[in-house]
């Protein structure tokens, strides 16, 4: 199919699925867009494709800066904000010939698990249950739905505690979160810098790989971007292991199954899918190893201390002086600056997290919350280091347990349940809402590469085709072992 035909189909899908509220902004200059598309199409026909993603339509989560469209983070405080510069990842996509399909909806500043905390419409999953709208997951729900419904070929999201993987699992697509520091965050509006990563949402892992290969790389503008020297060190490290592992279709992988991920809250359908996948993998000759990651139980709490703490700091800049629309109320009354603007323009969930974060950083609470959470983060990282056979390439000199870990990858479900009804979210206990990230947050705390891959659930007795028919399986690997995650994903996709 020609690129033009494919693009047309995307446009048609955008029209059809408008009510799902995946997009918040279309490309600004349609004429230019068409010209670029035409040019890419010609390159493709003449066999001069710039890259594997030349001419592909890629949607961008609206917390990633583009210069043509506004960048709002789905927040009233950035309503109408135009960034004067593009994010590095956007530049890289364009340089590879990709077309920016538009900006996608999200939970305000990335804070949420269902993409419902937005100044735009709440994002809706294409799947329904008894006719009720289901959560698309969050916070990259707009990107996930755009891909799942064929409105674009791929989308960028951001993943801080599961924000790419969870919506991928809920919408039945692939969602990849790279190792921290491999993809530039320059131009990505910070939620929690030490956890934020740019991720990729696609229909399959090979497309995800193409997009990832395009956007990764050292960026001097991002101080947390790993320099080229470190990257080649990691590559060498992984290659050495590869020689031992002799990865190929016939070689078996050692797959870890952490006990702690088999939670009480795990829905039976999810547990069944997990077991079935493991059984199939074993049939292929891979070995399954039950292991323990004891800090997992504390990981979510640590995540919900650290992420809001960083968020409270990062969002301090939205005060109505430079960013944000100044409140009509008289600012500066009662000797309190900016309170009216921030009060009026930030959403409830954002305010809640700013308060949480401000508290946990306050002089009275920091030792008990922020510092403890950082320690838990270390424990979580230590757990993974003990589990993986590949040692952490950046922590070689630090005291790791002398006992070599036993597994190459870890396989868990991405979410504990199928997507919940949107109508049930309001009633849900807020703590339960945060529980949506329980299986994804540990990898974020440890900075590990991770991917959610859909596996189909048994067809027996499922009449309604509109109901979810996949469950997301989460692949985790050692820091820097991103390629192995893709390899594992291919194996699962082929089951």
């Amino acid at each position, binding site marked *: 199919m020609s690129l033009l035909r494919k693009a047309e189909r995307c446009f048609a899908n955008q029209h059809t699925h408008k009510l799902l509220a995946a997009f918040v902004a279309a490309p600004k200059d349609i004429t230019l867009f068409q010209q670029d598309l035409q040019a890419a199409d010609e390159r493709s026909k003449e066999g001069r494709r710039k890259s594997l993603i030349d001419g592909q339509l890629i949607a961008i989560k609206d917390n990633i800066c583009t210069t043509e469209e506004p960048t709002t983070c789905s927040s009233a405080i950035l309503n109408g904000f135009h960034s*004067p510069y593009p994010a590095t990842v956007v530049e890289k996509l364009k340089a590879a010939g990709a077309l920016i399909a538009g900006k996608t909806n999200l939970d305000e500043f990335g804070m949420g698990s269902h993409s419902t905390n937005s100044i735009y419409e709440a994002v809706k999953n294409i799947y329904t249950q008894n006719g009720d709208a289901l959560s698309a997951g969050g916070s990259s729900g707009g990107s996930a739905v755009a891909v799942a419904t064929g409105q674009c070929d791929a989308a960028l999201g951001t993943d801080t505690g599961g924000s790419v993987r969870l919506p991928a699992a809920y919408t039945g697509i692939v969602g990849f979160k790279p190792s921290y520091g491999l993809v530039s965050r320059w*131009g*990505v509006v910070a939620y929690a810098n030490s956890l934020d990563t740019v991720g990729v949402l696609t229909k399959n892992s090979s497309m995800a790989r193409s997009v990832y290969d395009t956007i990764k790389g050292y960026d001097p503008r991002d*101080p947390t971007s790993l320099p080229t020297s470190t990257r080649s060190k990691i590559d060498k490290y992984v290659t050495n292991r590869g020689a031992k592992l002799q990865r190929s279709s016939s070689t078996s992988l050692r797959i870890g199954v952490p006990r702690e991920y088999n939670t009480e809250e795990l829905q039976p359908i999810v547990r069944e899918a997990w077991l079935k996948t493991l059984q199939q993998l074993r049939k292929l000759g891979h070995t399954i190893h039950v292991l323990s990651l004891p800090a997992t139980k504390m990981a979510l709490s640590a995540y919900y201390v650290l992420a809001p703490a960083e968020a409270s700091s990062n*969002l301090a800049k939205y005060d109505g002086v430079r960013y944000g629309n100044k409140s009509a109320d008289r600012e500066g009354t009662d000797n309190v*600056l900016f309170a009216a603007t921030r009060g009026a323009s930030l959403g409830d969930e954002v305010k809640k997290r700013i308060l949480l974060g401000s508290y946990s950083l306050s002089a009275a609470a920091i030792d008990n919350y922020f510092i403890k959470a950082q320690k838990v983060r270390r424990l979580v990282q230590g757990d993974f280091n003990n589990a993986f056979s590949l040692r952490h390439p950046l922590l070689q000199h630090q005291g790791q347990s002398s006992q070599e870990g036993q597994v190459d990858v870890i396989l868990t479900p991405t979410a504990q349940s199928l997507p919940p009804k949107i109508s049930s979210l309001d009633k849900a206990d807020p703590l339960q809402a945060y529980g949506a990230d329980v299986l994804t947050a540990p990898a974020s705390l440890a900075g590990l590469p991770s991917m959610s891959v859909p596996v189909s659930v048994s067809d027996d007795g499922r009449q309604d085709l509109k109901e979810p028919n996949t469950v997301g399986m989460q692949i985790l690997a050692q820091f820097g072992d991103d390629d192995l995650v893709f390899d594992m994903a291919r194996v699962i996709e082929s089951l």
Partner: protein
Amino acid sequence: MSKAASVNGLHHILAVSRLRAATRWQSLRVSSLRRQWNLPINHAHALQTDAAEVNDVPLRKQLKDRAKRKRQFERIAVEDGTSSNGRQKEKDARLDKWKLTVGLEIHAQLNTERKLFSTAKSSENDEPNTNVSIFDLAFPGSQPEFQKATLIPALRAALGLSCNIHRESRFDRKHYYYQDQPAGYQITQYYKPFAVDGHVTLYDHDGIAAEDGQPVNIAIKQVQMEQDTAKSTLQPPSTTFLDFNRVGHPLIEIITHPQIHNVQTASACVRKIQAILQAVNAVTTGMELGGLRADVNVSVSHKGSDKLGQRTEIKNLSSFRAVEDSIAAERDRQIAVLEAGGSIAGETRGWTLGSTETKKLRGKEGEVDYRYMPDPDIPPLFIGEDLVNHIEKSLPVLPDNTLADLTTNSGLTTKDAKTLISLDDGERLDYFDEVRSLWSSTRSSSLSPSPAFDKIVGNWVLHEMGGLLSAAATPFSPKLVPPETMADILANLHDDRITGTTAKQLLAMVFNGDKRVINTIIKAENLELQHLSRDEYLAMAQTLIDKNAEKVQQIQQKRQMGKLMWFVGQMMRRGEGKVEANKAEATLKELLGLD
């Protein structure tokens, strides 16, 4: 915050700056130095900004301060003695019972080419909002880019203050809301500063209080790097202009331990720290130009008690006078409160120049919790030992070492040497050096050893020049009498082409605006020393002896040798600059039969 200013008018400026920031970004992308911060850096040349041209104003201010301090001394002396001012007496009596304790936090602008975390120029005096990068304005999605070169002046400062340099330090965010703070936080070094455990020694010549004795050693707790804020300019009634050129300019904050117990010593300490920072070329300008600001912590406790009293903090003092006056006022306030049976609240207070009391800015309940958080974007800073060693070796001479050099090698008296160092922000010392080297370049090196010459230069630069300055009530400037001219005068004097009297006359002429070359003046005014013959000396002396028989008698019979000098003086006066004192004296002695 009490300064809740509305920010109308801001949007226009910001609209402009946003555009500029957008274009600036293009140039930002080019630079990509980063990461490996632990190796020596060869950017020293980039640090020489135009600090030299701003030296005039602080001098004037310093002279004024000096004069004021002198007046204060005199006043105190009067009051200690016979003054009938009861209130002052009461105050002094109080000071006998209470001990003042002061700690300082000094913020100084580093002399760097770029900002701390962006490649924007650090020059603030350009058109407002022209030196602003995307990060400086805290654009969403922007990130800091540490400029390694800013470390060089920071290290010079820390080493000048005898600090230990931490091999690893970190940057933290200090949160508070204000319109001059685009990110809502300042990046500073709270948990792990780059330098700790320094000290500064204050001597008598540094202007410490007499009660302190000497020398006083003030320990420095830490020195940290941090960002400056934007400059707010109030446009009454309700508009504030913001200039973001200053935002992100690298500062160092120097925190002393609370070890100062006298008002004067506090300002002497600030002065000394400023002098050290300037001597090592670490800072842009001095206090009076906004290059240096101080916060002071003040407490009082009963004399003899080891426990410190509750402290208050006075923020944002921008002159030495403000440091002194505000501490004195806050001390007196605290004593008054305590003596009235009250207690001191830990609070932040403010000071406006010329006022007589500190004003409460915010109490403890309104105290900002800065919520210090390690900056998650900025990796730890590793400073290599080789860099520290290199900078330590190339550190310019510190003022205290200069003193030793002037007294031992140049033969100046300690008093003169101290004066020379402390005058005019070091400019008088520079002048001295220049005159000295100009003069020595004109004479062959085999001639007299330099200390003798240095001493002459010292005399003229300090005393002769000083006399003219105070008579004219003019601040010093090297332009008044160019160093070349001064060297010319001294060379002529030393080579016996003119007499001392003529030399002074020449200096005064140039000082008062005579632009001619010295040799031209000497010729035109016929000032060249014409050596009188022995007969002429004898004749002149004999005339005087004849006319003053009484004095001659006193000399010869009562051995009143002082009278001899009277005769020498008379001869010099009559000789119109042609009589040399030593020859006159010899002639007189000969005639009077003395030896």
